[in-house]
């Protein structure tokens, strides 16, 4: 299923989030199961699975990582398994450094600083991926897949920093 066409949007990494939300709400109002409380079992089933798909599609298109992955799969580019490590030695070193920073940060101020620099890295990474995914070439798609994996790491790191902040605040 091509989620971009489900939402009547061009298949591109950069999406108009306002339009995405508008189209989501229109589809929601049309397909929500509550609209079919008195419909036949057939219609109920059909709209339930359509509505479930729409909610999943909205999630996928809202987050840049899953949107990028979905775009690649729409383009017929096969993503290698999750376990595949990023074969970039520099990035591996960088990961270890970030992990050590997180380990060392033990107060809110230090963690907030980490979160801010991580957010900047995420934004830069998103821009880089947007550039790579503009054209649909085999080589750029492959590079984009690598960069998406790195971005996934950054997203995970962000939630780990946040979890540590939460634990201190509790």
């Amino acid at each position: 299923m091509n989620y971009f066409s489900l939402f009547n949007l061009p298949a591109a990494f950069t999406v108009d989030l306002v339009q995405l939300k508008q189209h989501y709400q229109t589809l929601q109002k049309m397909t929500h199961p509550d609209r079919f409380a008195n419909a036949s079992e057939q219609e109920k089933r059909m709209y339930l699975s359509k509505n479930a798909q729409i909610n999943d599609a909205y999630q996928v298109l809202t987050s840049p990582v899953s949107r990028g992955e979905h775009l690649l799969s729409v383009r017929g580019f096969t993503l290698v398994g999750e376990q595949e490590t990023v074969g970039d030695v520099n990035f591996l070193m960088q990961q270890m450094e970030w992990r050590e920073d997180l380990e060392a940060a033990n107060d809110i101020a230090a963690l907030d600083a980490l979160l801010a620099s991580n957010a900047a890295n995420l934004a830069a990474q998103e821009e880089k991926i947007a550039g790579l995914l503009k054209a649909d070439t085999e080589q750029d798609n492959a590079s984009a897949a690598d960069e998406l994996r790195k971005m996934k790491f950054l997203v995970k790191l962000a939630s780990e920093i946040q979890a540590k902040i939460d634990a201190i605040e509790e």
Partner: protein
Amino acid sequence: MALLQIAEPGQSAAPHERKIGIGIDLGTTNSLVSAVRSGQCTTLADEQQRHLLPSVVHYSSESIDVGYHARDNSNADPKNTIMSVKRFMGRTLKDVTSHWGNLPYEFVEGSESPRFVTPQGELNPVQISSHILTALKVRAEASLGEEVTGAVITVPAYFDDAQRQGTKDAAKLSGLKVLRLLNEPTAAAIAYGLDSQEEGLIAVYDLGGGTFDVSILRLNKGVFEVLSTGGDSALGGDDFDHKIAQYFASSLGLSEQEQRHNHRRLMNAGKAAKEALTDNTDYTCQISLLIDNEEVNKNLSISLAQFNELIADLVHKTTRICKRALKDAEVSLDEVNSIVMVGGSTRVPLVRTEVSAFFNKEVLTSIDPDKVVAIGAGIQADILVGNKPDSDMLLLDVLPLSLGIETMGGLVEKIIPRNTTIPVAKAQEFTTFKDGQTAMMVHVLQGERELVEDCRSLAKFSLSGIPPMTAGAAHIRVTFQVDADGLLNVTAMEKSSGVQAEIQVKPSYGLEESEILNMLQSSVQNAKQDMQARMLKEQQVEASRVLEAMQSALAEDGDELLSPEERKAIDNSLFAMVDAAKMGDADAIKKAIEAVDKLSQAFAARRMDKSIQQALAGHSVDDI
């Protein structure tokens, strides 16, 4: 310019066909039923003008007694007077006794889920809850003078799959058609939101007898969007009673055995003290206790300050959960426009002041906190039965707890994270690890923790009928679908062969479908003939509904979306259905309807896709 109102097919219910939808708040301590009458939603009272129905059921060999009488005589027969049965729903016996201990009931030994031994036989929490629901249904039909079409039943937002399924099963047992399970905080927001046309962010703080819930919602042009939800399904006003009861017991120096013998009396005294301290700063009373087989009178007293101290930790726990919910919703404290207070326990002064202090705002209490959930449910029920076809209201609820599956090493891999808007479907691929493997087990869990043992086991699926292939060659796509009630459904397919893998569901808690059928059958044994007549009538009504809907769909899109052959096949199935409906065989009508359904499935899907495309195309034009 005059605008013509064009009714959607199937929505043009004639005025005399007004249907009755009821809202039910199935509470831990008290339950309520509501309905919309002359445009207003009100809770329905019994003959003595009492709106609440205590969620207490007393079983004797002669009768099943629900409500005030059962509650007020609970001291006389505590063993057979089941209170707060909601706490047992979808739980193991161990869950319940480890948390509340000292329960006066007798349980069937050795069974994992709690089964009460009563003079009416062994009963499970679903059956006991169904007795409460039946009492509410009877009240509604007596009060409205009409048969109930369907019900919206509220559940704590934090209820997991097993607890929701149990609630739905209980409704099924009492003969109620469930239009929707609605989260209690969402129901409360409906009650307030529609009255005051509120727009913006709203926090619903719901502290009932046995559960605590908080939800953060965004209201915008009739769309209620739940942003996040949190809570504790084992924290409520009963815990306040318990704290006071413990305080009384220790101030009287009661032994553990004496405490157990007087459990219900102490709890009742605790409850009375809590309620009195809503408007007073001191409370004293005399209590009769059973000590060494003799009734002994004792004096008890507690001040508001002492009470506040006893419950401070519990109240603080609720504001911590509020903080978490705000964070999950990605909103800040000062963005919240209003705080709706729900549940009888929000009458406790410390709760009001602490919550108000936490949000730094006055809290809303204008609708009776005991009734607000039921009123919201009644409004939603009225819409869902079809009495307000032009209503713009839409509720977007979220999954309260993450769903995941067991992976290697006893870890849980999340498949659908909590706070995802529902309904939602996610597919996950599995592969075989042995040559020729034709079956595999999938263990589904719900919760936020990483280890299997820390999450709630929902079900174990065995996938069978996988075509034998080399290891890793079979790809089984398992789809987890959560419906609008928050209930999980699983389907599986082997990708390369397209073989539908069979799924056997073993619910870890709750009831198997066959158990429900058995219970249903035994409850209608006497009314068998009634049932048959009723089923025939139902099938005939369904057939004419299908005919009407198909005719209007065919008139609209038949030429455009169907080939002449497809059209002919559908027409023939309709003729066959009309013929069957004239005969007196409910089964034959059902089969004919199914045939129409099957033949028209592709047509229905094409119509849906067409209308979706049109809606979005219309949008694009609007945007320009």
